[in-house]
């Protein structure tokens, strides 16, 4: 056995195997004479959000692919509930531009989806106006929303999201996290998410799993943020794990107008408007968060132009 430093924390309160959508037990993937990831124990139940964090090459995507059967485990076991319906947003997807593919067509990639469900999913992700646009003409953020909409429209039991908000601007990121949380509550699906930010997990995450070739530590976001294993591995510069959630009091509509919290719509932001995220007290990045993560931030506390 390689070094394994599995946390002694219990697997959580969901230890009833029958309700598990997928469980991995001591699972690992061996490629090119090395273990990409090894000794992974994790399970996802209905309505549970599990977030994987870890540095580049930690085996996050590999673990997710193993959970959904894209990669076969070279050791250990992976069990999926029968007839498990998966919705998968991969980390990377390159579509050859010679294939004419509209957003609407992309939605029907792996299953028949009614027009109604298609539009509902596109509206939920905020790109209904792009339904007939060609996929190759989308910006990175729009493409990401289209992929999320596609996975949603399948009404999956298990949603697997590999860095779902990459390339999405800050306000959009918050809206998508809100949406993902809402999907969990309304549909009760399980969610396996890979965070693109080592120091950030979505609010509503039940279990955070820190990976670095093996599971370093796990637990609720609060537990992990205080774990010494996490601090040792990722806590450089005094940065701790933050839970991502914030309130915004206005939304930029696709046509450039602005909708306010009271529902009114204007052409521009009001000078007295707060930020897309609320500063200071309302700002919910817990745990001595120094505000220096790679997102596009508006200056905190300054009026929004």
């Amino acid at each position, binding site marked *: 056995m390689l070094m394994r430093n599995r946390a002694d924390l219990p697997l959580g309160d969901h230890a009833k195997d029958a309700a598990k959508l997928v469980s991995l037990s001591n699972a690992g993937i061996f490629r090119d004479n090395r273990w990409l990831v090894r000794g992974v124990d994790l399970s996802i139940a209905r309505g549970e959000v599990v977030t994987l964090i870890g540095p580049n090459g930690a085996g996050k995507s590999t673990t997710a*692919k193993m959970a*959904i*059967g*894209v990669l076969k485990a070279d050791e250990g076991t992976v069990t999926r509930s029968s007839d498990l319906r*998966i*919705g*998968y947003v*991969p980390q990377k*997807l*390159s*579509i*050859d531009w*010679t*294939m*004419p*593919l*509209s957003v609407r*067509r*992309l939605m029907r*990639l*792996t*299953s028949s989806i009614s027009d109604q469900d298609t539009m509902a999913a596109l509206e939920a992700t905020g790109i209904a106006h792009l339904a*007939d*646009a*060609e996929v*190759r*003409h*989308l*910006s*990175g953020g*729009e*493409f990401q929303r289209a992929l999320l909409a596609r996975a949603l429209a*399948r009404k999956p039991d298990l949603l*697997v999201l590999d860095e779902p908000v990459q390339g999405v601007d800050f306000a959009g990121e918050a809206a998508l996290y809100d949406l993902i949380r809402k999907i969990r509550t309304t549909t009760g699906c399980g969610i396996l998410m890979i965070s693109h930010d080592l120091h950030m997990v979505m609010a509503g995450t039940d279990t955070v799993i820190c990976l670095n070739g093996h599971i370093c530590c796990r637990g609720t976001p609060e537990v992990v943020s205080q774990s010494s294993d996490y601090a040792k591995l990722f806590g450089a510069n005094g940065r701790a794990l933050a839970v991502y959630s914030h309130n915004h009091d206005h939304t930029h509509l696709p046509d450039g107008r602005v909708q306010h919290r009271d529902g009114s719509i204007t052409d521009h932001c009001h000078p007295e408007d707060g930020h897309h995220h609320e500063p200071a007290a309302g700002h919910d990045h817990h745990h001595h968060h120094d505000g220096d993560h790679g997102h596009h931030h508006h200056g905190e506390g300054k009026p929004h132009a």
Partner: protein
Amino acid sequence: MLDDFFTRAMIAGVGVALTAGPLGCFVVWRRMAYFGDTMAHSALLGVALSLFFEVNLLLSVFGVAVLVSGLLLLLQRRQSLSADALLGILSHSALAIGLVLVAFMTWVRIDLIAFLFGDILAVTPSDIALIWGGGIVVVAALAFLWRPLIASTVSEDVAEAEGMRPAQAKLFFMLLMALVIAIAMKIVGIMLITSLLIIPAATARRFSASPEWMAVFASLIGAAAVVGGLFGSLTYDTPSGPSIVVAALLLFIMSLLPAFGRKTNERATNQGVRG
């Protein structure tokens, strides 16, 4: 009607073009042009083996094409050489071995040119039955496999995760390719088969709003190239197979003219383009 060699050629050629259209789209989307070329080149080896063992020509060509594509996938998995170099080695070796074998068999005389560049004017009614029968099988199989094939072309991982069995779809796709090559060899010849797969599909791209329409347009454009090429060959007394390819090329060049093509929502100009 079938008494006239020109009519027979037309019916056979249109049959091949209609079949090649949708298959050619996948060749373009999956960047398998060279792969298709390699399979086609291996057909000459199939011809030689068929003569040597006195087995059915079509079966032999089909079998060798399947074997070569299987060998290719196996070698690719070992990743000792780039796919590109492997294709180059297999493609030309298969062709060369075929030529050498034919030369050894001094007791047979074959019209090499007919195999290499096609002899559509010598098509018999039974050839037509084979082309249309085989074509219907290929198109029906493609229609049946359409969703898994499209899904795995966009992303094998997503297809696998969402229950599409991309490996199986790929295997069937190889078999269909081999079948089309075996059928089309007599019409356009080994050297030109790939062009009938790729050029109409590439031409159809500009007019198509969806993968499905692109497949349909590729078939129609291929059929137009066959008709145009055959009339050109009759008028100018040029070889028929190459004339069909030249006609396809002319259609492709025309499709590049700004006056043609679908008006798309060119949002790429003011927004970041995803590569």
